[in-house]
């Protein structure tokens, strides 16, 4: 019994070790949970900053989303769908709460849903479901933090970033707020390029850069990132999502918010210059009537505008290719047979009138019109809906189609054709930009948009630089979809009706916040 192992025996054992480890993987029971065909799951996939105006499915001359167009052949396509706001915080909050920004009040920088309304969210209403979420976008995590009591699993944002494997999150999991913040301050260069650490930080930066540089061939314009030195590739996000869907219990509600095609437009190598020299002059000179900038503010420079738009379009191609891979995998796995699949965005992007980006007081169509495609379980034919719809409609629609009650506080309506009734052409759709307004004050300064039928009225309220308490723009979207001619003065009857309605609405929503 006490005989020691000889050198020969030891070597034999070591030789057997690698194959035995390898074989043991095959013998492991996969953690796959049996799919229950009687329940319907919900998947919401959101691509940040995706304007419907730049999607081929909606008539854009460049074929930016061939995979979405393919999926749309077996889906319901909403052609006039509007975001609740023109940037992530208000737009996403409207989607997740089914309420407009004047109600959820996630309107400011670092905005969150107003106190007392945190439980009015989609995850709370799907309380019989396994609810999970992920986002590349930090703004969304403020909602995840608020909605955490109603969510079963929130994947950490940094877990799907590249070169973030050293962090205090893992070392100090019980101090989830301050430990990662400390790490960021100590070793990751902030916006001013300084760190607490004098010597370790530059070495760590070199290490991270070496990892990022290893992707240089795949992403010649640079790796996609959040703007805060957090790099990622969409493939990782999609792969993670697929792995989750395969293993989580049914029914589930998954919210997956991916950053592409948000700036910087760092597309994958096969899409670089895909649209270069295609001869499409889809950009037209548009009047810059209001003294607003926003995002990257540049003078009207058509060369710059064309280049920015082309880079954006090529980044959309990348997002679309991953979307196609995701959808095909889900379809192949049979996951879509019992799943409602929703594809949308939180807001659009603007490349006109000298305004580039989306953080702007203006609410022209490219920044506010977003895609919405819903695939019903087992749907085989395409349906097109041209009635104006809003992001606040998605929540009540999903409740209805999964057989649940719609609470009274929801401001959206069930989308056609799932509502079972003919949609009213005179329904009013709103969008709000109120970043500079107080969270608990009236909407001022703010921009409020009202779309009703063919008309779109935009009210600019309380902007000092405009020299008036309120300035309005009115466009006939049917005859002037590019919003070139403001008819506010010439169409006085329509203008007056819409203005009265919009101002009455603003007065109504401001009432609780008047001091």
């Amino acid at each position, binding site marked *: 019994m006490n005989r020691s192992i000889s050198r020969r025996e030891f070597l034999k054992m070591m030789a057997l070790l690698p194959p035995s480890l390898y074989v043991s993987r095959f013998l492991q029971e996969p953690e796959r949970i049996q799919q229950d065909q009687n329940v319907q799951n919900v998947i919401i996939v959101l691509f940040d900053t995706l304007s419907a105006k730049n999607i081929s499915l909606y008539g854009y001359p460049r074929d930016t989303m061939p995979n979405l167009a393919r999926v749309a052949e077996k889906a319901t396509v909403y052609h006039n769908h509007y975001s609740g706001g023109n940037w992530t915080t208000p737009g996403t909050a409207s989607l997740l709460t089914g309420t407009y920004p004047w109600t959820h009040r996630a309107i400011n920088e670092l905005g969150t849903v107003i106190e007392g309304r945190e439980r009015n969210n989609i995850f709370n209403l799907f309380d019989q479901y396994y609810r999970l979420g992920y986002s590349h976008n930090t703004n969304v995590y403020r909602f995840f933090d608020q909605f955490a009591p109603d969510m079963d699993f929130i994947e950490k944002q940094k877990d799907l970033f590249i070169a973030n494997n050293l962090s*205090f999150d893992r070392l*100090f999991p*019980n*101090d*989830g*707020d*301050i*430990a990662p*913040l*400390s*790490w960021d*301050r*100590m070793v990751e*260069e902030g916006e*001013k*390029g*300084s*760190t*607490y*650490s*004098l*010597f*370790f930080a*530059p070495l760590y930066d070199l290490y991270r850069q070496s990892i990022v540089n290893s992707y240089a061939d795949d992403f010649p314009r640079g790796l996609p990132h959040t703007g805060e030195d957090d790099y990622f590739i969409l493939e990782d996000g999609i792969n993670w999502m697929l792995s989750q869907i395969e293993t989580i219990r049914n029914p589930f509600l998954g919210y997956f918010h991916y950053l592409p095609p948000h700036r910087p437009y760092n597309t994958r190598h096969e899409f670089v210059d895909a649209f270069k020299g295609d001869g499409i002059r889809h950009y037209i000179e548009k009047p810059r009537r209001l003294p607003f900038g926003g995002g990257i503010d540049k003078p009207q420079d058509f060369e710059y505008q064309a280049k920015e738009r082309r880079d954006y379009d090529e980044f959309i191609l990348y997002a679309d290719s991953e979307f196609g891979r995701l959808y095909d995998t889900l379809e192949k796995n049979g996951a879509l047979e019992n799943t409602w699949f929703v594809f949308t965005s939180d807001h659009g992007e603007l490349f006109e009138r000298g305004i580039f980006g989306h953080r702007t007081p203006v609410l022209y169509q490219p920044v506010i019109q977003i895609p919405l495609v819903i695939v019903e379980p087992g749907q085989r034919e395409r349906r097109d809906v041209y009635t104006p719809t809003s992001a606040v409609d998605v929540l009540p629609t999903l409740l209805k189609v999964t057989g649940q009650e719609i609470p009274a506080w929801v401001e959206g309506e069930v989308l056609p054709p799932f509502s079972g009734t003919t949609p009213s052409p005179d329904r009013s759709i709103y969008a709000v930009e109120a970043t500079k307004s107080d969270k608990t004050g009236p909407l001022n300064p703010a921009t409020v948009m009202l779309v009703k039928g063919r008309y779109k009225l935009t009210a600019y309220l309380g902007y000092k630089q405009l020299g008036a308490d309120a300035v309005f723009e009115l466009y006939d979207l049917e005859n002037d979809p590019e919003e070139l001619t403001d008819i506010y003065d010439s169409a006085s009857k329509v203008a007056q009706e819409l203005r009265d309605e919009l101002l009455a609405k603003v007065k109504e929503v401001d009432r609780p916040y008047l001091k």
Partner: protein
Amino acid sequence: MLYRFPFFTRAYTRRSLFQLFMVCAFPIHVWTILMAFRDFSWVAERTNTWDAVGLLSYAMVFAFFETFGMFLILVLTGLFMPKGWSAEKRLGLLGVLYLILAVWAILIQSYSLNGYPLPGWVAKFLVESGHPLRLMWGGMFLVTALTVTVPVILLVRSEKAQRASIEIFDRLAILSSFYLLFDVVGAVVLVVRNIRA
């Protein structure tokens, strides 16, 4: 354990190692404290003072480990110096080189932090030279080389300079000992935060 190796005992005394550690701690802690206090009120306003204290504590504990890392690197570097050098000479040279490196690191970070613009006449001179990049890199190399070579030559050749450096290190050690006390407090706060949560 390293004291079992004769080459190590020849290179360092316990006192020189202690002084070297304290010298390492000084710039790292000064910079960390300066930077962390810049953020203290920002964090306190957004969350609470306890979180701000937490941020400071993580920073101090991290500074301790960074100090230790730099100390090890310096000790190893010192072993490559000529065998015949005394522990004091070795300590003087390592300490001064380290402090020069720290000053450069602080200057680079301060430059990023405050965004000092290049003086107009320098920019003009560079542009007019026709080779602005070459000149800039050349100038940087010259300045860096001077800040390193002059003190090194002084320390190697002059015993007076060595003594002066050791005396400076003695004083820095007193300040550093306060910082190390902060590190201990930081470690306690860190433990409390992670147990409490």
